[in-house]
């Protein structure tokens, strides 16, 4: 890997982008959408006091959505587009190596994607200030956004080197991004529901049948023969039900970019409950790691008499022992991105053994 040549490749790519009008139009549209989003959100959240943390996290998630939508167009035709324009071969006959070409294009696509984050940055700052969020949240969420843009850039460049036609590689990049965002959600839901286990629920309740005829517990003036509520006996009943096993498929959801973003951002809790969308999503994903207990018991009898034997654990407490899933997901994504890049490099190697069908090499 020669830095001088790598820089030259990146320079060629970026110079073309900077000089194309379409690029600025895209950035402009992106900014307009963010302005609209931000002003609408301000208008909506001004109805209620508080809750502005939710608004901030929503804005960041939407920035992630928009960059995921834009990034494939920046990278999805990097290599095969050059081949179509006959600009790839003249570069390949120079001393630049195939890895330098593909990685240079990947870095260029990443840098172009970051331009969208730069446009989004003022909006993020405004949202943070308005939401009175902790600065740690914006730093981590920005880092994750930067990585996600890079992952999509790598997927796009890798696929563009593997697939012959630019439209198909751009479409495949979109499909892969869709698989990561929507597909993981569907696979998680269906997978969890498909893997069910039986659980037994044992509940203890006041035995209303033990109330003798003629007694009415709701009226205070009943005969002394009637038992008081506290004197009523308790009965136990149990029923069997099937529970989805999300604890077996939680890792699928971990690869979701939105989940990674939410889970990596430091959570905030108030009285054990999440106070923003990130913490809410993270709590949901983390609690999916918990396997359902084989038997759950519910003591309605004791509870109704005001004797709290066992406090329900708060969300914060319940997920305290779970593993953060974001680096599992990020690791998977980096593996996917790196693998596609490596595949792309091996398919672009010269002297070429085989050519993708329908390509002209020069």
């Amino acid at each position, binding site marked *: 890997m020669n830095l001088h040549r790598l820089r030259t490749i990146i320079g060629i790519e970026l110079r*073309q982008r900077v*000089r*194309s009008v379409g690029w600025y139009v895209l950035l402009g549209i992106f900014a307009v959408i963010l302005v609209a989003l931000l002003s609408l959100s301000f208008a909506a959240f001004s109805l209620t006091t508080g809750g502005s943390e939710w608004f901030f996290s929503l804005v960041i998630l939407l920035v992630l959505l928009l960059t995921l939508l834009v990034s494939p167009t920046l990278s999805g035709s990097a290599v095969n587009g050059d081949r179509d324009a*006959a*600009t790839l071969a*003249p*570069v390949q006959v120079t001393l630049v190596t195939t890895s330098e070409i593909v990685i240079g294009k990947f870095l260029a696509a990443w840098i172009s994607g970051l331009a969208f984050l730069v446009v989004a940055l003022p909006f993020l700052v405004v949202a943070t200030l308005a939401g009175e969020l902790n600065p740690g949240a914006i730093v981590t969420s920005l880092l994750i956004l930067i990585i996600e843009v890079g992952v999509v850039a790598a997927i796009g460049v890798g696929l563009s080197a593997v697939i012959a036609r630019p439209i198909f590689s751009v479409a495949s990049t979109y499909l892969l991004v869709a698989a990561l965002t929507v597909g993981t959600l569907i696979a998680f839901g269906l997978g969890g529901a498909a893997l069910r286990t039986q659980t037994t629920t044992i509940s203890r309740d006041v035995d209303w049948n033990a109330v003798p005829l003629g007694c009415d517990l709701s009226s205070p003036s009943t005969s002394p023969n009637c038992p008081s509520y506290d004197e009523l006996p308790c009965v136990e009943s149990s029923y069997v039900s099937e529970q989805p096993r999300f604890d077996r498929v939680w890792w699928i959801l971990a690869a979701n970019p939105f989940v990674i973003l939410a889970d990596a951002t430091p959570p905030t809790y108030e009285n054990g409950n999440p106070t923003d969308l990130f913490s809410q999503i993270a709590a949901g994903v983390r609690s999916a790691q918990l396997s359902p207990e084989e038997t759950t018991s519910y003591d309605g009898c004791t509870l109704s008499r005001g004797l709290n034997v066992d406090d329900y654990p708060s969300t914060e407490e319940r997920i305290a022992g779970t593993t953060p899933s974001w680096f599992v997901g990020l690791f998977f994504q980096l593996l996917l991105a790196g693998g596609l890049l490596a595949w792309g490099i091996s398919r672009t190697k010269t002297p070429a053994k085989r050519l993708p069908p329908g390509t002209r090499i020069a």
Partner: protein
Amino acid sequence: MALGGVGGSLYGEAMDAGIDVAGVKRSFGAVHAVQQVTFTALPGRVTGLVGPNGSGKTTLMLMLASLLRPDEGEMRIGGIDPVSDPAGARRLLGWMPDSLGAWPSLTSREVLVATAQLYDLSREDARARADHLLELVDLGALAASPARVLSRGQKQRLALARALVHGPRVLLLDEPASGLDPQARIALRVLLRRLAGEGRTILISSHVLSELEEVVDDAVFMVDGRTVGTDRVAAAATRVRVWRVRVAADLARSTESVRGDIAAALGRTAEEVRVDRRDVLVPFSDEAAAVAGLRSLVSAGLPIVEFAPAVGDLEHAFLDLRAEASPPTPDLPDGPAGPRDASPPGSWAPPAAHPVTDADRTDDGSTS
């Protein structure tokens, strides 16, 4: 075109690097683009690669340029195998593809600077090199124009400059003259001769055979993915050939009567010679026969002003080899046939003189 020094190799090696190709084959699925190619191109010489469209010239060029791996066979660029050591071969060779392939919105100068940097030149050296080459190919005035808006001929010149950016010792030029105006063609010819004079090896493919004829020292003929053996080329060159005879214009006499005079002076029937506009075309079996014929014409008192082969040496050999490669289909030669009024085989030659039907052809029809 300003002629400055092109500059030696940037990598300091000696200049004598030739091209050796032996038994190279390459197929794309069922299409056997290159079936059997063997030839040598020597340093200091311009070698022409001649063949019809689809004969595998560009595929061969791509393999030599280290972009495509041959299925079989050996190649050496200055002793280096472009398959096992592409980087080593790439230092030596400059490749000019048949289309420029310009990056959108990069200027001519930037194209050259970027390419030079990819050959490991520093930014300053790359700039100096780009300016020098732009002057060399006469694009100095268009240095700041986007390469994409250049005309075809200007793109060709830019592509040539790009191929020269690292002072390569071996040049692979794919149709370099197409799209060039006459002045640029002459400049290209002068430049190629000078590059060869510096000891570089130049392999040049072209359809414009008359154009090629003026610049090449050697020729490699390719038909249906195979190089044609030099013996067959030599045989083709000595076969019956049509000569153009022009008699001083005399408005009083028709070309028909001139044709009769010429036939009579040569002792042939009028059917054996043909009229092509103002000229008469006469087949001769070899050069000795042509000399004898010219002598008889002059002795007969005919005012001969022009007596020359109707087609150039390369074209003659090319058309002849092509005709024997595909006897049933006398298809048109590809590309413009050059300024010598050459027509497709079979359209102008009298039946008796057609190479395919000629009695003195010697070869057995085998291909190498």
